[in-house]
């Protein structure tokens, strides 16, 4: 059911590859902010500045045929799974060349070819869908897993409780990645939970829980890989809390005014960390610069593609409505 994709090379991607993906993600979000200001992207736009390493590191643990569910802030999964950037931006601009022909927008790119089933703008959906995928994977017994991306805000939804229990009860091959970016829109973590060590919740459901520095892309990759290995071997679900910081507005409509001045300071910058590590391991600065330039160019080319993409034809909506409204019976 899942077709081939360039994102799955068969071996876990190395730091240089991950750094490149992070650069693509950051440049994508920068481009989207520009497009939003230009009026070419409408509606809510949830960018992921500051938390690039968490999302990119997690998808690095996946193999061809695995499934990913995601949140209203899904760009890291789009990039990490290797979705082509041009159609991805076109979808966010409501154009015909988008993966969903403009029907879904930035929160709902649904693409079985990449196992992306699916992101959702409803907090908690990624958890519920993941239980179903995991159940089907367990029945199939083919060693595939589901990466369920969720966040600190979703952890208080009823869906989290229902899904975490079912995943553990049925020992499903699911990895629940809680991107703890410290904010549920405007409400800081310590104002919406008493126990801020979110990974500790896992024990209450009978599954392992582990925290990882969400700004260290290699640490996330390795931590999630241990969890996916365990799931592939029939060991059941794991909750991974990736501790990060949303160094961005919630969405384009965010009026701000709820953050402390220095509260981002304790969090290492995921790009500085990764770049320094690459240099320390002997990669030349010129090589790393080239990775950054390549990412930048790829996003620029994708924006150019999306800008020229035509608007979708609404005529097929009339055809679909005829089925559900029954108008073919009456007109």
């Amino acid at each position, binding site marked *: *059911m899942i077709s081939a994709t360039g994102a799955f090379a068969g071996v876990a991607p190395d730091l240089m590859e991950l750094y490149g993906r992070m650069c693509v993600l950051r440049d994508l979000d920068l481009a989207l902010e520009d497009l939003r200001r230009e009026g070419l992207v409408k509606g809510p736009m949830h960018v992921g500045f500051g938390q690039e390493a968490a999302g990119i590191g997690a998808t690095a643990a996946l193999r061809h045929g695995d*499934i990913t*569910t995601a949140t209203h802030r899904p760009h890291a999964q789009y990039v990490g799974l290797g979705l082509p950037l041009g159609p991805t931006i076109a979808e966010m601009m409501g154009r015909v060349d988008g993966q*969903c*022909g403009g*029907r*879904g927008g930035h929160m*709902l790119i*649904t*693409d*079985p070819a990449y196992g992306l*089933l*699916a992101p*959702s*703008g*409803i907090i908690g*959906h990624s*958890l*519920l*869908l*993941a*239980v*179903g*995928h*995991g*159940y*089907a*994977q367990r*029945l199939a017994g083919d060693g595939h897993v589901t990466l369920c991306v969720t966040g600190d805000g979703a952890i208080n939804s*009823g*869906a989290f*409780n*229902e*899904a975490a*229990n*079912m995943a553990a*009860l049925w020992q499903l091959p699911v990895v629940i990645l809680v991107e703890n970016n410290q904010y549920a829109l405007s409400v800081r973590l310590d104002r919406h939970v008493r126990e801020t060590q979110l990974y500790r919740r896992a024990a209450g459901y009978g599954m392992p829980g582990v925290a990882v520095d969400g700004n260290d892309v290699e640490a996330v990759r390795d931590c999630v890989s241990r969890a996916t290995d365990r799931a592939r071997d029939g060991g059941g679900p794991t909750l991974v809390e990736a501790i990060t910081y949303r160094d961005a507005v919630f969405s384009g409509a965010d009026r701000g005014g709820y953050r402390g001045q220095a509260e981002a300071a304790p969090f290492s910058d995921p790009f500085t960390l990764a770049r320094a590590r690459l240099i320390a391991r002997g990669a030349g600065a010129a090589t790393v610069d080239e990775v950054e330039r390549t990412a930048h160019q790829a996003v620029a080319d994708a924006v150019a593609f999306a800008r020229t993409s035509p608007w979708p034809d609404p005529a097929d909506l009339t055809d*679909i*409505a005829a*089925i*559900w*409204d*029954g108008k073919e*019976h*009456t007109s």
Partner: protein
Amino acid sequence: MIPMTYAQALNDALRQEMRRDERVIVLGEDVAVYGGIFGATTGLLDEFGPDRVVDTPISENGIVGAAIGMAMSGLRPVVEIMYSDFLCLALDSLANAAAVYPFVSHGRVTVPLVVRTQGGPGNSAGPQHSKSLEQWTAHLPGIHTVLPSDAADAKGLLTAAIRSDDPVVMFEHKALYTTEDLVPEGEHLTPLGTARVVHEGDDVTIIALSGMVRHALDAAASLSAFGVHAEVVDVRSLRPLDTTTLVASARKTGRVVVAAETWLRYGPTAEIAAAITEEAFEYLHAPVARVGALGVPYPASPTLESAVVRKADDIVRATQRVLTTQVIRPARNQMWDTV
């Protein structure tokens, strides 16, 4: 054709489809070991095992949400939600996921999900166990809403629902599970999106759904004693709505009563009356009459509940009202001349 109860007919459909297609799995509260509180899943665990017949935690939104994921991953889940009142907890998954992903993916992702639930008053079950909420899911394009009114359609609609690649919500009726009818043996499908004329007549059309169909047939029998030949049409599918069949009957008789057990306002009777007015206005001799429950939560006391719900007598009274009304209007060409 063999006699079967409505619950046995559902069981028959589930068993046949599970034998036919190993992707079909049944899940819900108390469906496995216990066999479902109305017995519809009795014996399935023994035949198909715990991987395919799954007792779930009490997590309605989780069950339906997980089933949507299963369906997106290639299984064909059949969920039982014990009471339609409890379906309120799962409306999020239906409205925001089941109806959405096939649309946004242009059908590259399908959600072959069936949610069986049951509604209907009459058991003194009180405000949280008596509602008929079919209008809530019928409002959602992308999801079929069907309501079998007898055992044959219980089997036929459930079989068609399981084989459909679209999500289907099937509202069964708690008062019907023990009623017996003749049911086709072997494979039996009732096409989704089709109404059925269950009793022919020329004088007036009574359109009904779910448990109200039996009351409509009782009303037709009473009316025949007065020489009135009522046609009874079972809606069966609220979305898509088979306006062809409903409108054809309205045009034939020119007088229409629409009856449902649920509340009158914003319910299926309003939608059907509007469709008939739009498509058959010039054939009508009287305004479309509607029968539905009083606009209060269903009370527990049998005395109070019977004051809220509507039955055959109420349909008879509404029918007498439309039979004694005669709209006088100019001939069609005169109408146009005045424009």
